[in-house]
């Protein structure tokens, strides 16, 4: 799965490529709009990450050319400007997502994963599982090592999200947005508390901890060797 980054600031581009490559994506970086457009039009990429301000051709022009050529490659915009009109303009042209600098890399990664997943067929799972933790989507029940665990509706939604995206570091803002539909910057520590309470129910009685905090980035559900 190949990603294309078109970003003219060398440092930003370099770290984006490094981060995405280490997350397991085959990533290509170009620093000017014209080359970016040429590559984007080849149709070889699963996702385009475009900076808005670029030398040669700006991100919007590239997006227009891509959509004009009939390609529906997902496009994620990066910009330092946060004007509502820009956002609207981007979505009108067919952008799939929009991130304003400064953004957290974990946030970018989560969105990249969302966009890439969107293309795939959503599996109709009836249950989700990790190690001895099992979540029954139909009966809305959670068990660990056969023991029934009672969760509130939001705790269930939170655990479902962690299980669906196990192994991914989920930033707090993404969790707030997906589980509680809170789509704004907030420096509240609600998410920390919610995770702590979920941990209390899921992990505290078991030696094999599944919910992990990645300092400064978010939370991840995964099995780690003891």
């Amino acid at each position, binding site marked *: 799965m190949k990603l294309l980054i078109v970003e003219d600031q060398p440092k930003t581009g370099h770290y984006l490529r490094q981060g995405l490559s280490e997350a397991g994506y085959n990533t290509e970086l170009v620093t000017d709009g014209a080359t970016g457009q040429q590559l984007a039009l080849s149709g070889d990429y699963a996702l385009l990450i475009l900076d808005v301000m670029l030398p040669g051709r700006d991100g919007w022009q590239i997006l227009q050319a891509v959509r004009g050529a009939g390609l529906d490659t997902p496009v994620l915009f990066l910009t330092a400007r*946060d*004007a*509502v009109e820009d956002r609207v303009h981007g979505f009108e042209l067919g952008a799939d997502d929009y991130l*304003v600098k*400064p953004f*957290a890399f974990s946030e970018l990664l989560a969105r990249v994963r969302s966009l890439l997943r969107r293309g795939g067929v959503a599996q109709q799972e009836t249950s989700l599982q990790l190690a001895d933790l099992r979540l029954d989507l139909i009966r809305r029940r959670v068990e660990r090592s056969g023991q029934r665990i009672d969760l509130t509706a*939001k705790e269930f939604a939170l655990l479902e999200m962690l299980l669906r995206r196990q192994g991914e570091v989920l930033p707090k803002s993404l969790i*707030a947005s997906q589980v*509680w*539909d*809170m*789509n*704004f*910057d*907030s*420096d*509240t*520590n*609600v998410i*920390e*508390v*919610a995770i*702590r*309470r979920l941990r209390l129910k899921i992990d505290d009685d078991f030696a094999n901890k599944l919910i992990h905090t990645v*300092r*400064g*980035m978010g939370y991840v559900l995964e099995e780690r060797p003891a």
Partner: protein
Amino acid sequence: MRHLSLSSRLALLFAACTAVVSLFAGVLFSRASEAHFIELDQQLLDGKLIGVRRALADANAADATARLADELSRQADLSLRITDPNGQRRYDSATDIPQDLPHTPGLSTLSHDGTDYRVLNAALNPDRADSPQLTLLLDITHHQHFLQRMQRLIWLTVGLSALATALLGAWAARSGLRPLRRMSGVASGVSAQSLNARLPEADMPPELAEMARHFNAMLGRLDDSFQRLSAFSADIAHELRTPLSNLLTHTQVTLTRPRPLEDYREALHSNLEELQWMAQLVNDMLYLAKADHGLLMPSRESLELGDETDVLLEFFAPLAEDARVTLSRDGSARLDGDRNMLRRALSNLLDNALRFTPPDGEVRVHMVDGPQGVSLSVENSGEGISPELLPRLFDRFYRADPARHEGSSEHAGLGLAITQSIIRAHGGTIRGESAAGWTRFVIELPRGD
């Protein structure tokens, strides 16, 4: 005239008024005196006319001449000419009588060779058509001199009084305008460093007191905004300086000598926290800057505020349970507004309320759907806030507790300022109320058009 000073204008106006008034009075007086002189002359000449007629009543010529001379000698400045009905001169009492005299009957005035005369023409015997004509001349040069002197005096008075009032007027205007000059003095002394200067309102005349009050109020507002602005700039610098110095110090110390891998990881994590804090701060400040420039444009969708509040209360439920605080909502309201913005505004209020509610306390959201708009309040139990601090709560970087806990996920103190900006962008107002045992934030939102 446009560039003349106010004092000069007033002085000139005063002078012109005085000149007009004194000129008018002078002319009136001079006319009256002249009329008075004419009346006196008329009486005198009428009396003399009777005397002359009487003297000439008898035809006895020799005797008549003597009586005439006797009659005339009693008035030195009087002279007489007698003419035939056909204009032939018959008698002159003096040699210096002008050749041509007016023939109109009655009184007239004549000027000849530097001498002024009052002339009275009358028939010797009014009953007879061929009666000789009598012309009595009264030398009135001294009267005329007097009148001329008086006219000069009048002109002098006009000029001098105009000059005097101009000077007095200028002085009066200058002293009358002194409060204005004081005002301008204060205004010219006002700069960013001295916005605390105020005009003494009590000393001002009533006409200027109002202006002084407005002027002072303007200075007050400017001072207030400026204080806030400079405090804001200073705060920004301070807020950024702390994490920046942490980053610098920590990074430099880490790099001074080789360390185990875990130390580097720890350093990066610590840096990450500071950086995230700074990113959040910058984002919040940009949000506020956008609000200040009127760029915060809420979308308008129909919202059920009761439902929105419930969603938020559910979001904050874990935090509240942790803090053993009860969350509740009563009332409901419908409003057109921006869902995410209003959620953010309310979320800041709830977060703030939870922060200051002691265990076993409660946070209540109450809303009333009125005809004019919606009133929504967020109230929490706990220690009240002193009234003088209430308006300051919305100041940027204001913290009820000045001691910031370093390194924690402590707020930058922009939450309530952001809430206020959002409410204002919706055309509403927010205020804080407090008393012993509770604190309440009241939002008034007008119904969207």
